[in-house]
C-alpha cells in the first residue's frame, strides 16, 4: 500500500476513525496501531509479517535479557546474537546472491569454472529500515542509554509503526518508543504541520518525482552518448530521488504528526550543502546518524589517528552504499562518498585555522561531487557507468535538449522556490507562517496539481527497493 494510492487514503481514513474511538485507552490504541501496521505491511506481502514479528520478538526478548543482566560478557554476547541475527536476516534476503555472484566471479578469475545460478529471493519490503531500527534499540539498551521495553505490544507497534515502516525515517528507540507509552497530545499546530507535510510530500512525489522519472529514463539507457544529456539526466535524477524520498518522509512525518507522534527529521535542504560533510548532515539524516552512532564511532571515529580516521570513513561509507543494495553501483557510490569525505576531512585538518571555502564555491564543488555520485547510484551496471562517464566527454547536445531543459526547469521551479524560501527564513515550515488565505491559495494550488497527476496506478517510491 503506497502513500500515493487511493487505497492508502481509504486505509488512513478508516484508521483515523478507529483512532478516535480508542482515545480513552492507551492499551487499545497500541493494539490498534499494531494491527493496522501489520495489516499495512501484509498488503505488500503477508508472508513477511512472520519475519517482522519474529525479529521483533527476538529483539524484545534479548533486550530485556541484556537490561536485566549485570555481567558484561553475557550482555556483550546477547547483543552480538541480536546484531548477528538481524544482519543475518538482512544478508540472507538482500546480499546472498550478490556475494555468491562476487565469489563466483573471483573463482572464475582464478581459473575455476562455476555454473551457479542466482537464487530467486524476494526482498521483504522495508527490511533494511526495520532491521536497523531494531538493532539500534538493542544496542541502546546494551549501552544503558535507555531501558528495555517491558511491554510487548508497544514495542511491536514501535518496530512496525506503519508511517515509517517501509522507508523510514530509521527511528531510535529512545526517541520513538516512549511515545507509545504516554498519552499523546494532538494540537492545532501539530495537525496544521502534519497536513502541510502530507500535502507537500505527496506533491513532491506525485507531481515532481513521477514526472522527472521519464526524463531520467530517457538518458539512463544504453544508447546515450551525449555529455550534456548525461548532465541533464543526472540533475533530473538528483531532483527525482530527493522529491521521491523526502516526499515519502514528509508524508510519514505528517501522518505521524496527525496522530500526535513525532518522527525524526530526515532531510534538511541537502542540496544547499556547502561541503560533503554538510551534505551528510542534511541527507537521509536518520541513516547517516545511525551509521555514525553504531558504526563510525564504535570503529573509533576520528579519535584513533589520521590513518584510522580515513579508514573508518571509507569503511562506513562503503557499508552505507551496500545498505542501499547488493550491487556494484551502490558500492561504488558509497566508495565515492567515502573518498569525498576523506578529502573533506583532509582539507579541514590541513587548514584548521583558516576560513573554509567561500560558500558559493563550496556549494558548487559539493553539488558537482554529489551529482557524479548520483550517476553511479542510478546506473544499472558497471558497463553503464563506464558508458555514461565516457559520454561526459562528448559535448554534442542531444536533439531534444530544449524540451528536456524546459521540463526540467518547470519541475524544478516549485522545489527551488520552496527551498529558497525555507533556506532564507531558516524554517522548514515556512509556508505555515503565511496568513490563512495566502496559505490556502498555495495549498489549494498544490492540491489541484496533485489531483491532476494523481494516478490509479501509483508509482512506487524508489527507496522501497532498499
Amino acid at each position, binding site marked *: 500500500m503506497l502513500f500515493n494510492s487511493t487505497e492508502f487514503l481509504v486505509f488512513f481514513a478508516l484508521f483515523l476513525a478507529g483512532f478516535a474511538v*480508542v482515545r*480513552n485507552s492507551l492499551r487499545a490504541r497500541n493494539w490498534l496501531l499494531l494491527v493496522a501496521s501489520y495489516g499495512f505491511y501484509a498488503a505488500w506481502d503477508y508472508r513477511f509479517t512472520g519475519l517482522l514479528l519474529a525479529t521483533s520478538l527476538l529483539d524484545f526478548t534479548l533486550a530485556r535479557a541484556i537490561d536485566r543482566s549485570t555481567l558484561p560478557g553475557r550482555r556483550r554476547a546477547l547483543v552480538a546474537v541480536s546484531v548477528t541475527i538481524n544482519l543475518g536476516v538482512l544478508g540472507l534476503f538482500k546480499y546472498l546472491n550478490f556475494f555468491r555472484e562476487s565469489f563466483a566471479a573471483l573463482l572464475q578469475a582464478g581459473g575455476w569454472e562455476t555454473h551457479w545460478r542466482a537464487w530467486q529471493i524476494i526482498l521483504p519490503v522495508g527490511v533494511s529500515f526495520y532491521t536497523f531500527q531494531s538493532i539500534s534499540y538493542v544496542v541502546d539498551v546494551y549501552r544503558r542509554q535507555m531501558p528495555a521495553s517491558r511491554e510487548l505490544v508497544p514495542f511491536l507497534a514501535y518496530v512496525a509503526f506503519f508511517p515509517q515502516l517501509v522507508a523510514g525515517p530509521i527511528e531510535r528507540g529512545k526517541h520513538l518508543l516512549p511515545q507509545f507509552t504516554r*498519552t*499523546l497530545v494532538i*494540537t492545532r499546530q501539530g495537525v496544521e504541520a502534519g497536513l502541510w507535510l502530507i500535502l507537500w510530500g505527496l506533491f513532491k512525489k506525485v507531481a515532481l518525482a513521477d514526472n522527472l522519472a*521519464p526524463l531520467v*529514463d530517457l538518458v539512463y539507457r544504453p544508447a546515450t552518448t551525449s555529455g550534456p544529456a548525461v548532465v541533464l539526466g543526472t540533475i533530473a535524477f538528483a531532483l527525482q530521488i530527493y522529491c521521491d524520498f523526502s516526499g515519502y518522509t514528509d508524508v510519514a512525518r505528517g501522518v505521524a504528526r496527525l496522530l*500526535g507522534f513525532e518522527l525524526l527529521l530526515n532531510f534538511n535542504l541537502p542540496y544547499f550543502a556547502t561541503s560533503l560533510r554538510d551534505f551528510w548532515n542534511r541527507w537521509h539524516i536518520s541513516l547517516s546518524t545511525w551509521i555514525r552512532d553504531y558504526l563510525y564511532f564504535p570503529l573509533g571515529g576520528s579519535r584513533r589517528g589520521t590513518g584510522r580516521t580515513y579508514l573508518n570513513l571509507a569503511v562506513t561509507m562503503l557499508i552505507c552504499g551496500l545498505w542501499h543494495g547488493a550491487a556494484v553501483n551502490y558500492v561504488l557510490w558509497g566508495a565515492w562518498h567515502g573518498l569525498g569525505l576523506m578529502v573533506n576531512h583532509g582539507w579541514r585538518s590541513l587548514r584548521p585555522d583558516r576560513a573554509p571555502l567561500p560558500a558559493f564555491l563550496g556549494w558548487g564543488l559539493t553539488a558537482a561531487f554529489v551529482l557524479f555520485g548520483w550517476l553511479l547510484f542510478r546506473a544499472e551496471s558497471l558497463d553503464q557507468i563506464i558508458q555514461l562517464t565516457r559520454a561526459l566527454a562528448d559535448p554534442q547536445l542531444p536533439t*531534444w535538449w530544449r524540451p528536456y531543459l524546459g521540463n526540467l526547469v518547470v519541475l524544478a521551479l516549485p522545489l527551488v522556490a520552496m527551498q529558497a524560501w525555507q533556506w532564507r527564513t531558516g524554517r522548514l515550515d515556512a509556508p505555515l507562517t503565511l496568513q490563512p488565505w495566502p496559505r490556502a491559495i498555495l495549498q489549494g494550488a498544490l492540491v489541484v496539481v496533485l489531483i491532476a*497527476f494523481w494516478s490509479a496506478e501509483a508509482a512506487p517510491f524508489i527507496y522501497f527497493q532498499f
Partner: protein
Amino acid sequence: MKSHEFQLTPRDLVGLVGPTLVVVLVAMGLLQAARHWRCLPPPPLSLNPDLTMLAHQARASRQRDPAEIVLVGDSTCLMGVDAGQLSRELPRHDPALSLALIIGLDLKVYGGVLRTFAATNPGQVRAAVLLLTPQKLAAGNHSEDEVAAWQTIDATMATGWGDLSPTTETDWLGRKLLRENLLAHVLDTPLRGSGAEYFGFSSQIDHYLTAHRGSLLDFGTFALPRRRQHLDYQLAPGFEAESRAFRSLLPAGTRLYIGLTPGPRSAAAPDDRVRRNELLRQWNVWMQADALLTNLPTTLADAGFAKSGHLNGRGQAELTTALARELAPLLEPKTGPPGK
C-alpha cells in the same frame, strides 16, 4: 491511561482545511466554466507519438504548401520515403510532401487527407503516390478505433477546438482539462521505447515531420525473426471497397501512382518481384492508377530496416532514390495550368 487528548476543536479543523477546500472548489468551478465557454487553450500536439503524428498530418493537409507531388499511404510510406530528398532527386526538383499516416486507417482516410490538401491548394497537386506495405493488402482491414481517433483529430484541426483523447469518464474534477489543456503546454511528453533516444519528446516528432516535409524515421533496431517467413503477396477481397473509395476521392487532374514498400531481404523468396507485380496489377483493377511503380525494390538489405516494414535512415535514402528514379519519367513537365 488515555491514548490521546485533543487540544483542538472541530472549529479549528474547519479553519485549517476550509479555506484550502474553498480554493480547490473555486479552481475546479473555474475549470468547468472555462470548458463550457471554450476559453481554455486546446491541448498541444504532444500528448503521445501517434496522436502527434496524426495531428501533424491533419494540420499539414490544411496548410498552404507548394507541393505538387503528395505521398500518401501507411507508416511504411511515412518512414520509408523522405519527401525532401525525393524533391531534390527529381530532375525538376518538383516540390513533394508526405501526408502518409498509419496502417490502422483505411484508404478512405488516406484519400480524404489528399483531397483536403488539394482543396486547400487548388489545382496544384499533379501526382499522388500511394505506397502501402503488402501486409495491408493481404489484411484488407482497418482499426475502427484508429479511424475514430483520426476523425476526432481531423475535426479538431478543422474547427480549431476539440478533444484529442476523448473519454467516457466524467471529468468533474477537471483532471483531464488540467493535464491536457493547461499542464501539457508547459510539460512536454517524453517518449518511451523506439525512437525515444532520437526524438526524446513527442513534440520533437512534430518538429521533425515539419522539417522533413511530413516524413518520419524509425530509429528502432531490426531483429531477424526467429521463424523465417516469406513476404505475403495477397489481395484481400475486402480491400475493394476501400480501394474504390480512395479512387473516388482523388482530386481531379491528379495522376495516381501506386506501389508497394519493400520487405527485409531475409524474408525474400526468388519469385518475389513477379508475385509483387502481379499483386499490383490485381489491385489496380480497383485503383485505376495512371502507373504502377513496378521497379521499386521488393526487398532491401536487413541493415536498411529499423524493424520489419519500417526503414531506417539508410533504407529510407535507398528507397527514396529508387522512387525518384521511377517517378522521374512519369512526371510530365508543367505545360499549362495544373489540373487541366
